[in-house]
């Protein structure tokens, strides 16, 4: 089949380091779905949500450079990290609505022989897979239906906020649908768009932990066997900090946390290794083996 859609892929710094698995699985799945993700040539830091609030203009410049690069390639920009999505989209919006800013950034970009007219759309991979690829294409590729795998669909706070363009800001359903397409069972997960603790883990750990705990608890109570994430930071908080949560609250959570791309990959029959599974701190192996057996 012909390549469906061509995009510039913006991995972002977070998947370069400890979230390699996200990047890995994303590429594998997109390749299978004929979504052409050509890594954006010479991309740089998105400007990062934190920097925005300290040196706004510079943050915009940094992020605008990526947009300019993408525009040069005449493709829309696909990101996997909602924070990048947020920052890049913000710059996009601000430049469109504030001619003065656009001018300033324009002159800055010129210094690097770049220019940005504002034609690039910044999109999250989840939304691309759900809206552009769609149900049929995905179902057509299922090899192992994840039958009965009860998953808590976790969106985090940044995919739909503040713009709410792709899904309902308070109660998104996109990931829920995707999960049903690959045969999993999304459980009722009222906290699906609530805060995971974010950076607080570094600054005010106890608060961060309590927020993460809420998420884990809610998932467990609704019978989830694992949590599906779309955000590297959420992933880290939920996954790596489970032990700290248990220590801190005397709880005993062992809920595997998987990227939605990994779940799709499994359903498509890719090996755990190729999807970067089994590197996680809260092992998903037992659960998955149980399931994949069920399927065999």
């Amino acid at each position: 089949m012909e390549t469906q859609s061509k995009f510039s892929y913006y991995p972002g710094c977070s998947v370069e380091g400890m979230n390699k698995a996200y990047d890995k699985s994303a590429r594998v799945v997109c390749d299978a779905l004929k979504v052409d993700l050509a890594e954006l040539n010479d991309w740089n830091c998105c400007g990062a949500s934190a920097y925005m609030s300290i040196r706004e203009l510079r943050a915009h410049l940094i992020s605008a450079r990526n947009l300019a690069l993408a525009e040069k390639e005449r493709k829309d920009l696909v990101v996997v990290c909602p924070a990048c999505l947020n920052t890049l989209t913000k710059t996009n919006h601000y430049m469109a609505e504030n001619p003065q800013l656009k001018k300033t950034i324009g002159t800055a970009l010129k210094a690097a022989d770049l220019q940005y007219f504002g034609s690039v759309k910044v999109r999250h991979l989840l939304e691309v897979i759900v809206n552009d690829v769609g149900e049929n294409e995905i179902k057509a590729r299922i090899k192992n239906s994840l039958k009965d795998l009860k998953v808590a669909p976790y969106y985090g706070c940044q995919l739909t906020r503040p713009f709410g363009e792709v899904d309902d800001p308070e109660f998104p359903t996109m990931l829920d649908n995707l999960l049903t397409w690959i045969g999993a069972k999304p459980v009722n997960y009222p906290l699906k768009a609530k805060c995971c603790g974010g950076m607080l883990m570094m600054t005010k750990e106890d608060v961060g932990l309590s927020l993460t705990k809420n998420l884990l608890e809610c998932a467990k109570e609704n019978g989830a066997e694992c949590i599906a994430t779309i955000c590297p930071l959420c992933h880290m908080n939920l996954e790596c900090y489970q032990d700290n949560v248990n220590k801190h609250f005397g709880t005993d959570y062992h809920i595997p946390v998987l990227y939605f791309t990994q779940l799709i990959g499994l359903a498509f029959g890719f090996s755990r290794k190729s999807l970067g599974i089994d590197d996680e701190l809260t092992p998903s192996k037992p659960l998955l083996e149980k399931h994949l057996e069920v399927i065999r």
Partner: protein
Amino acid sequence: MTEKIGVYVCHCGTNIARTVDCKSVAEYASHLPNVAIARDYQYTCSDPGQEMIRKDIRELGLTRVVVASCSPLMHESTFRRTVSSAGVNPFLFQMANIREQCSWITNDRELATERAKAIVTGAVTRVNYNEPLEVKKVPVNPDVLVVGGGITGIEAALQIADSGRKVWLVEKEPTIGGYMARFDKTFPTLDCAACILTPKMVSVGQHQNIELLSYSDVIGFSGYVGNFTAKIRRRPRYVDEEKCNGCGLCEEKCPLKAPSEFDSGLGKRKAIYRPFPQAVPGTPVIDKEHCLYFTKGACRVCEKFCPKGAIDFEQKERVMEIPVGTAIIATGFDLFDAGKIKEYGYGRLPNVITSLEFERLTHASGPTAGKILMKNGKPPETVAIIHCVGSRDHNYNEYCSRVCCMYSLKTAHLVHEKTEAKVYEFYIDMRAFGKGYEEFYKRLLEEDVAFVRGRVAEITDVAQIPSEKGKLVVVAEDTLLGMVRRIPVDMVVLSVGLQPRNDALDVAHTFSISRSRDGFFLEKHPKLAPVSTAADGIFVAGACQGPKDIPDSVAQGGAAAANVLSLIDRKEVELEPSIAIIDEDACSGCKICPSLCPYHAIEFDEKKQVAVLTAAVCKGCGVCVAACPSGAIEQQNFTNRQLLAEVEAVSA
């Protein structure tokens, strides 16, 4: 030209004089061609002011008059009367607005005076070309159309009918009564809605002067003040209103149950039904969507049992045309769709209900026979009532829905009265503006309802502490304590706001009236003409003009009735004088104008090969005048010469 023009520059106290040098404007005007006298005066609209004009007309033989003062919308008619009482045709008077659009908009005296001079020049130049006009009069058809059978429409219809006039009352639903019929108690007096409403409904049903057309809607409305024609579609009930005696046997025997709209889907009704026992008319209606005969082709049980043979499956939709002289629009409101606010969980969390659903719960003849119960059939131990749902909110409706504060208090009171439950009210501001309202608020404070000042952020069923398990947690910032509170409750009542009906735009088009920015129908003047509209002979009343409680709606119903009656008793109305006139000799028969007239006032006379205009139908928009490439159409009082003269004067 031998015209003698009198110019009067009004100070309007200091309203104009503060920023406009009226003396110099008058002095300037006195040098304009054909101006015989130019004076400035304190209050030209005062009796002595008007007398001054009459005196000048008599003594100086003025032939035309210009008054430079406020907006013509304010005093044009006043001064037209003044001059005509002194024998000058009212249309030889011209008004120059140097207040609303001149003196009030700037503090720059120099500029304002300049502008005033220009505006006056415009009026003076124009008045030279004004032509005397006779205002035509046509009789007013005394029959009245009332659209909407809620409390407002009922009030209006009864008032008019009692005065001996005929009323056509059109209601969309199978019964009149509107929202009020679905309420339990009414604030602040807590008398039961049914007890005060049903008698009125009955008298509507029985009134000899009221022709009640339920289950019908107005699909067309044409003509002009005093002489409208309403086109009304009567949807088939499949029950003959003449024959039916309302015994209710058909309802009893009907095998099929469907969710009851009247009970907001909380209860059930049959496929042939009356929305509620006291419905007016008492004739049931067959719901085609559910009726077994219509869906499966078999059953007709109702037909078998009906002692009067009133069931008629063959009934067809009918369209009737009714001539009326005036119309009152009282189409009411829609409730805000609480499902839009996802974080409140309406539709997802079973015990989050709307205030209207609560009304049905607490209503003696409602689905729970008046018991306030949760979905699991148990009475709640704690209830939260949330104000301003969809109102005063940038994302939904920015306006205040006016009634929610008070009905929320009533809700609180009823919960308090009927259950042991602890009640929390989450409000932004408490608005108790009406008679007896503040007192009612006090009373509730004493009934130890817990008032939390703050807009609710979310309602969740996710517990964070054991005590929240199995509860609905209401999260809100208590702006008085300055802290975020999580209050676990069993039931949440959303006090949803009021908004324009979903068909408001169509109604506006049908009656060619305008809407204000929030989508409610626009009144002629917010203070001085609250129930009139820009369209003569068409009035609005009740919540279709903006959120209103029952007292205000009833008051407006009465006000609209009074307006209509005074129109009827005038017996005849004056026709728009500034209509188009076609000069048949100049018309080349290019057939461009007939297709443009929004009122089909222009027809093409194939024999004479010219366009002909029906004066009474023309409303004077002037579209044809501007379009006529032969310059064969003129608009009275807005002739090309008049407008050109004015434009030349003000642009020079």
